[in-house]
């Protein structure tokens, strides 16, 4: 299924300066029972965001109205743990289109790329600058420029480049997905399959 195209995103950002944010925090397992991909944003960071009686925990960043935007900025090793793509769906469904961290867990990074959320890995120093810029001004904007593979803190002009492979970059820019690609080379796949016993 094709997804949203991603080109240049300029937005304020929501800071989550915690390390090792795992996918059980992003979306707890008890919310994985749906058979369709909808409504996961309501339970994003469920147990950090709500008390057991469903009242909001006021100190949690998503419940603080001064923070908003389409970019989520997390601490090192973001998205570790379970392979549940529901975590990436929850991030997307809540309204984020980009996650910035100094380090991502592999499966979460791949899941994001597969649904059109851009994971941007920056240096620990640059991540720190972003957190400080948001602390100074919660409305401060970041520019994520995918064609140039560059992230900029607009208020200070500080920027850093980020990596993404050409294939995935093309997919993100055009909103293509891997299955379209794979279906186009199905003959090659079938030929390979004939040569390999079950």
């Amino acid at each position, binding site marked *: *299924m094709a997804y949203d195209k991603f080109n240049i995103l300029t937005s304020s950002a929501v800071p989550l*300066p*915690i*390390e*090792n944010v*795992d996918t*059980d*925090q992003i979306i*707890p*397992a*008890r919310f*994985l*029972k*749906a*058979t*369709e*991909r909808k409504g996961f944003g309501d339970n994003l960071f469920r*147990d950090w965001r709500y008390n*057991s009686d469903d009242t909001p925990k006021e100190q949690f960043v998503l419940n603080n109205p001064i923070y908003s935007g389409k970019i989520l900025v997390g*601490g*090192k*090793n973001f998205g*570790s*743990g*379970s*392979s*549940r*793509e*529901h975590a*990436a769906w929850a991030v997307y469904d809540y309204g984020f289109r980009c996650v910035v961290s100094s*380090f*991502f*867990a*592999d*499966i979460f990074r*791949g*899941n994001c790329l*597969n*649904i059109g959320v851009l994971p941007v890995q920056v240096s620990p120093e640059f991540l720190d600058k972003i957190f400080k810029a948001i602390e100074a001004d919660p409305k401060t904007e970041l520019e994520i420029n995918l064609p140039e593979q560059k992230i900029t803190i607009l208020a200070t002009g500080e920027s850093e480049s980020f990596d993404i*492979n*050409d*294939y*995935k970059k093309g997919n993100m820019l055009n909103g293509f*997905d*891997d*299955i379209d*690609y*794979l*279906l186009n*080379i*199905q003959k*090659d*796949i079938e030929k*390979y*399959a004939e040569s*390999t*016993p*079950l």
Partner: protein
Amino acid sequence: MSKTLFDKVWDSHVVKHIENGPDVLFIDRHLVHEVTSPVAFLGLKNRGIKVLYPERTFATADHNTPTRNQHLPVKDPLSANQLKALEENANAHNIPYWGLGHKKNGIVHVIGPENGITVPGATIVCGDSHTSTHGAFGAIAFGIGTSEVEMVLSTQCIMQPKPKSLRINVNGELSEAVTPKDVALFIISKLSTSGATGYFAEYAGDVFKNMSMEGRMTVCNLSIEMGARGGMIAPDETTFEYIKGREYTPKGKDWDAAMEYWSTLYSDDDAEFDKEVTFDASEIEPMITFGTNPGMGIGISKDIPLAETIDGSPATYKKSLEYMDYSEGEAMVGKPIDFVFLGSCTNGRIEDFRAFASIIKGRKKADNVTAWLVPGSHKVEAAIREEGILDILTEAGFELREPGCSACLAMNDDKIPAGKYAVSTSNRNFEGRQGPGARTLLASPLVAAAAAVTGKVTDPRELMQEEVLA
């Protein structure tokens, strides 16, 4: 050119390489469960396509199934709906389905090896990060997201950049009461939960050579907890002995042909790894975790480390201890506990129940402990009965449940209540993993058994010593 074990298996499965992009990797066997597959099947429906190779696909129900009264309809309507969706999807696409009550039903990573679906040199994926378990057989096995489940259902391929290689050597002999779980928790405590991210691990050295297949599965299972996509062990006589004669393994001439291939599956002597680490087995003691990620583990006789001595953010570390209601510098031994969970794809096999029973035998469950003992499959359950382990458990005041993932991720009713402590043989101690507010101490079946009979964190070596003295 010399190659690693991983190179040999990966390279032979590349259908196509994309320059400055991923490889198109052919998947030999695809395991499917109820939680991460429905949206993928929906994707196929929307595209109007069928599963390309249903004979390479196997489906089971495990994640949100009850562990009591499985013969009755599932009460939770959302779980029931997901199970129904899997059954319908499997039927519509001619995929073998081992649902609740089926004699081959169980946790996906337990039943794959048990039925011979898992073989050396294969590529195996599943929408579950603990798919790394199957690497114990010298397969490349790893967890995938739902978009990738859809890719494999529709084209039998996924697109992945080739990971870097890491070799983890553990040499020497393990001490008393040190199990494969302790070896894995020890390695993760040294590398951290992100230390192997971007890598695919190979485990080598005396300790793994001398380990049983079930032990190797426990180790490979936990590869993901240090960030590695997967981990593998070169197949040897132990491997071939284990798989021979199982339902889906090759037979007759096919077996001979397969053996010819499998016997080439090892890292060449001069193969180079991107990273290599070596540990001495004698350094490892029975392990237990004290925090909220699997890297926060220590030898059971040690104290909780001080924030100033750890790598990483002190704020994150303190938040973690606060969640556990533990303090820096405290001893773990003697801490009261409320629950014990024996089970999961990490430690839900017959050897785990044997180990647990070895401590329980002749003792009684502590009154303050609620214990959930959940076999990984019906075959494990049958072995527990046949070997007389059930009698030992019953006599000590324990009850055996029916197979499933259970309290490992608490999708069903097996939830540890908020604030309670559980010594768990599972794989993750994340906040709320075993139920909202639950506090998890990861450990081996021996440590779990010692806690179950004493009601507190206890070094199993003490109890084993008592036995010797008696």
